[in-house]
């Protein structure tokens, strides 16, 4: 029986309705690989290029992870990009006088406060999250403007610069890691599958398989940028917490039906405010990484990123109505968006045509797995209900 279970779970997890966003990504990568080959450009799936894509996506993907948590909790946050910019401006202004640890702590604290303000207003005053976070998005952007006074802030102090650079620049290399990790992931996947957890297990298994397959291609050592590792750790931990802890179960419950959650004794406000605070903190962290990456921020820095982040999460199948979503799929959503940008650069496609293509691909990607998912949901009348015997009268006498 467990064996049969395993197979059916595998099948379920691999169904387009479930893993659709992954298929969409694979399709895009396949098309780009073919096109580059066709046009006689350097191979698309080269180690460098894959490392680049991961590096380029990582900060937005981290934002998407935390935004997914907010969406699962049944809320909405437009303020992430402003908060990240604010944190970046904070850390850049303070790193020289106060040193990196203190500057980072203050920047993270600023993010946390922004998140808490969002959460408290939304949950305790009860105003719509869209309008609240639109307001804080504007207000925090205003703070960035005040802090920067309309200029680009840089970390010009060399010590400060190098401490910031150390945060994110460069790559960590682990020999044979890809094969090792792949094997580990696959093993974990099998284990998880046995523990009856479909999508999770299959994600691990698939990741493992891909890693093993790519291992010869990418070389026998794993060389990824630091932000990529941050992403892996953050997405991994968040996923595990949501997937395996009671916090996750309650968060989903709060988003799916707040009243049911309340009646089960769950403190709905705590979870929803907590999600906002986490998102604020996460935005603060990403802001620091942006500061470290760019060593400069101007008042309009990261403007508009909030829509990219939401797009990643929603491409990953997260519901805007709460209770549904997976941080890993949101990461894949972000990868889709950055793979496209990367593809345009590699193919040297004219700037004028990129917009039309991105827009179309986003809709088509969503269509692929919406339609596939629908197929699955065909409800069926019970095939063979075992006789539910006994007349009520008899039961009662």
């Amino acid at each position, binding site marked *: 029986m467990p064996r049969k279970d395993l197979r059916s779970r595998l099948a379920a997890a691999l169904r387009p309705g479930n893993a659709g966003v992954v298929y969409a990504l694979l399709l895009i990568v396949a098309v780009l690989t073919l096109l580059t080959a066709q046009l006689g450009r350097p191979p698309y799936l080269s180690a460098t290029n894959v490392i680049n894509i991961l590096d380029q996506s990582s900060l937005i993907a981290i934002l998407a992870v935390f935004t997914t948590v907010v969406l699962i909790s049944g809320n909405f946050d437009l303020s992430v990009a402003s908060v990240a910019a604010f944190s970046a401006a904070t850390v850049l202004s303070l790193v020289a006088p106060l040193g990196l640890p203190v500057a980072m702590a203050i920047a993270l604290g600023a993010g946390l406060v922004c998140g808490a303000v969002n959460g408290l207003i939304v949950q305790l005053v009860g105003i719509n999250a869209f309008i609240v976070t639109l307001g804080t998005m504007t207000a925090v952007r205003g703070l960035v403007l005040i802090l920067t006074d309309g200029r680009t802030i840089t970390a010009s102090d060399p010590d400060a610069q190098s401490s910031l650079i150390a945060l994110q620049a460069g790559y960590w290399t682990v020999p044979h890691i890809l094969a090792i990790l792949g094997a580990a992931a696959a093993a974990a996947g099998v284990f998880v599958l046995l523990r009856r957890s479909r999508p999770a297990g299959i994600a691990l298994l698939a990741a493992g398989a891909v890693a093993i397959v790519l291992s010869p291609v990418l070389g026998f050592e794993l060389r990824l940028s630091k932000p990529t590792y941050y992403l892996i750790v953050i997405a991994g931990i968040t996923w595990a917490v949501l997937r395996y802890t009671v916090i996750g179960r309650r968060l989903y419950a709060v988003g799916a039906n707040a009243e049911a959650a309340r009646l089960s004794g769950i403190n709905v406000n705590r979870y929803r405010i907590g999600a906002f605070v986490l998102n604020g903190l996460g935005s603060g962290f990403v802001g620091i990484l*942006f500061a470290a990456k760019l060593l400069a921020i101007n008042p309009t820095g990261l403007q508009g990123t909030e829509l990219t982040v939401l797009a990643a999460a929603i491409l990953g199948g997260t519901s805007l109505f709460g209770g549904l979503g997976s941080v890993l799929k949101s990461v894949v959503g972000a990868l889709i968006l950055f793979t496209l940008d990367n593809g345009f*650069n590699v193919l040297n496609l004219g700037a004028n045509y990129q917009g039309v293509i991105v827009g179309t691909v986003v809709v088509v990607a969503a269509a692929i797995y919406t339609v596939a998912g629908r197929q699955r949901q065909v409800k069926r009348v019970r095939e063979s209900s075992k006789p539910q015997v006994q007349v009520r009268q008899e039961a009662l006498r």
Partner: protein
Amino acid sequence: AGDGNKQYTIGVSNLGLSFPFPAAIGKGIKEEADKLGIKIVELDAQGKADKQSNDVQDLIAQQPDGVLILPVDSGVAQGLADRLKASNIPTVAVASQVGDPKQRQLKDVYPGLVALVTQDEYAAGGKAGEIAASVVPGGGKMAIVEGQAGFAEVVQRYQEFPKSAAAKGATYEVVARQPGDWVQDKAQSACQNMLSSNPDTQLFYAQSDDMAAGCAKAVAAAGSKAKVVGIGGSKLGIDAVKSGAIAGTVCYKPEDLGKLALTTLHQHLTGQKKQDAAFVTYDTPAITKDNLADCTPQW
């Protein structure tokens, strides 16, 4: 300079005070205004042409003695200049042309304006081409990091580049041109990606210093020997020239530009120097490690 005791009020419709370059122009204007005893009403279009149209309406309602307009969009600015003229408010355009650049030469200033005070974006592109010819002599493979699609500067800052490079004996083959949307981060990604598909690129021309700084990081990280040329002379750009990350840039001086624009208008108002559709500009020198002293960054 003002001999009359009249206190002038001048309206400034700035294209966006959150953008460092126009913000620095605004700063120059205000500093000069303090000196001249002029009252400034400064409105922020936040980069939106439609908001600039509203701002101009609000300015007209306040009946200032003159207006400085930093156009968000040259085409839209034409209508705004007409409206200002209809209200008899002397107007100076700053930093961008008024009127469709496809149909109007830069120096053919839109009639009705007192003056257009700006750097010559075309000439600046030419200067960048000269820097390129000096750091990658003879020519080679070049990739361009463009500003956000839709900005006039994307065309203007490229037009003279190949010509002046060729004049110095360098002909470049453009192997890629991709948008960096004026921002460091996207430019860094674009250069990373262009390098991975064209590893033998020898020259990157980034259409702003922010993008050049981002591009330089990608070049360094990839261990490429390609040179990066920027444009703008911002603090970021000059620092990068100093550190050798980028080979050179073209020095824009937004604060000086602001001052120049305000004095031009003030002199017209006082009658000191009446002008009609004059083209006023300032020098934007090419900057490399050799002449860093010629450019004190103003933004």
